């Protein structure tokens, strides 16, 4: 299996505060991996380093073998991102937002049109393609953001708390959609969350606390190792709550 994301010994500080402490992890193509941690555990900082919003000052981050610092163009080409904060332009339509993203990845007009049509059909918002984003619900906006992150056909999809603030129906729909994408396209997905109910048995989980990876592996293995009944109890035991 191809390694889509390889992080080795990455630490990061903001002044005296250590946001990440010697983090190492691997994600393979086709894996749906949950990065589980409480708010402030270091998930967003890790995403900012993977996407090169910040430079990693220690260790290395490779995406499909390309180091994000040394080969940032090749590395970033392979990443699709859905940030925790909504990042769509509210005053533009869905189509305009998606066209803008396509141009940021250098897609031609015709290729962009083809992909936008296909992605927008997949998220079942083709009837609203000319609507301003402002007029969409929270769940619809998230679906548009996911569609946008897939336009340049990334091999690694990063989602930072994508379901926060959404109702149960929207949350389940988005989660199912991304899990399907992962299987169908053999794409690696790193899904950061603090919502334990988003994890299914058989999935890979990385638990992060106070900037450190404290456990990782299959859900069943973590449950067994912590001698608990379910992943919620295992998580609570590991982070001490």
């Amino acid at each position: 299996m191809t390694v889509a994301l390889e992080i080795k010994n990455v630490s990061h500080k903001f002044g005296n505060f250590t946001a990440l402490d010697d983090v190492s992890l691997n994600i393979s193509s086709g894996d749906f991996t949950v990065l589980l941690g409480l708010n402030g555990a270091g998930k967003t900082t890790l995403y900012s380093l993977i996407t090169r919003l910040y430079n990693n000052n220690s260790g290395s981050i490779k995406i499909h073998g390309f180091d994000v610092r040394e080969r940032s163009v090749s590395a970033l080409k392979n990443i699709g991102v859905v940030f925790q904060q909504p990042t769509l332009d509210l005053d533009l339509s869905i189509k305009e937002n998606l066209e803008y993203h396509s141009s940021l990845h250098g897609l031609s007009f015709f290729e962009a049109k083809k992909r936008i049509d296909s992605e927008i059909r997949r998220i079942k918002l083709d009837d609203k393609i000319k609507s301003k984003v402002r007029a969409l619900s929270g769940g619809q906006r998230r679906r548009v953001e996911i569609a946008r992150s897939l336009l340049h056909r990334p091999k690694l999809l990063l989602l930072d708390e994508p379901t926060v603030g959404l109702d149960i129906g929207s949350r389940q729909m988005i989660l199912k959609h991304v899990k399907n994408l992962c299987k169908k396209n053999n794409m690696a997905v790193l899904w950061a969350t603090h919502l334990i109910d988003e994890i299914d048995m058989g999935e890979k989980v990385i638990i992060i606390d106070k900037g450190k990876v404290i456990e990782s592996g299959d859900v069943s293995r973590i449950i067994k190792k912590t001698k608990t009944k379910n992943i919620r109890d295992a998580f609570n035991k590991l982070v001490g709550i």
Partner: protein
Amino acid sequence: MELIIYARCFKGIVLREALRFIHQKERFFSALVRPLVWLGIFAAGFRSVLGVAIIPPYETYIPYEVYIAPGLIAMIQLFNGMQSSLSMVYDREMGSMKTMLVSPIPRWFLLISKLLAGVFVSILQVYAFLLIASLWDIIPPISGYFTILPALIVSGLMLGSLGMFLSSAIKQLENFAGVMNFVIFPMFFASSALYPLWKIEETSEWLYYVCFYNPFTYAVESIRFSLYSQINIEYTIGILIFTLLFLFLSILGYDPARGNMQKKGGK
């Protein structure tokens, strides 16, 4: 990376800026009203107070309205530059700036494209202003409408990159409003926009030096000379130096390794 990919990216960024501008009609309206208020009210009141001697590039005595027109054009660009930086602070707070910064296209190219997109919008505003200003008999030679263009591009880039640098250094939108007051007003008043430098020198020598080294003066004077199809080497070199300096600082400000983004921790 292929050239065509850069071209598509540039087109996308300019188009987005243009669409945002079209969608925000009030922005266009206020961008025009501001200099017109200065022209219609301030200049009318001051024309009797201030006499402007014959100074290059003018070949004869000119009404005060004609004198301040280049300053008002530069003011349009100053406000536009600060406004697009304001939108960058907003974009960064709202997160949409991240979408641009995680593009695989080199960051310096993305930032310069964003700046040029802002310059393009400011040029539209300037030509609309010049059209209306002709009602006040501010009519430069026909060639001036063309020769002003390079000066507008450079001055727009300079003021835009100054704004971009400030936006990289500012954490929150609220702080930016304060900086606007500390940047826009002092820059505008301590320049040759409203009164010629020799007049300021007569009043206060130190103020003269403040005005002389104010980058905005270089924008105003470059625009003034180019509007009359003339070139002033001193001001041209000055504006190019300031543009390169601010451009360098703004790209540095958004550099993931050295810039201000890192220091601010996520914003």
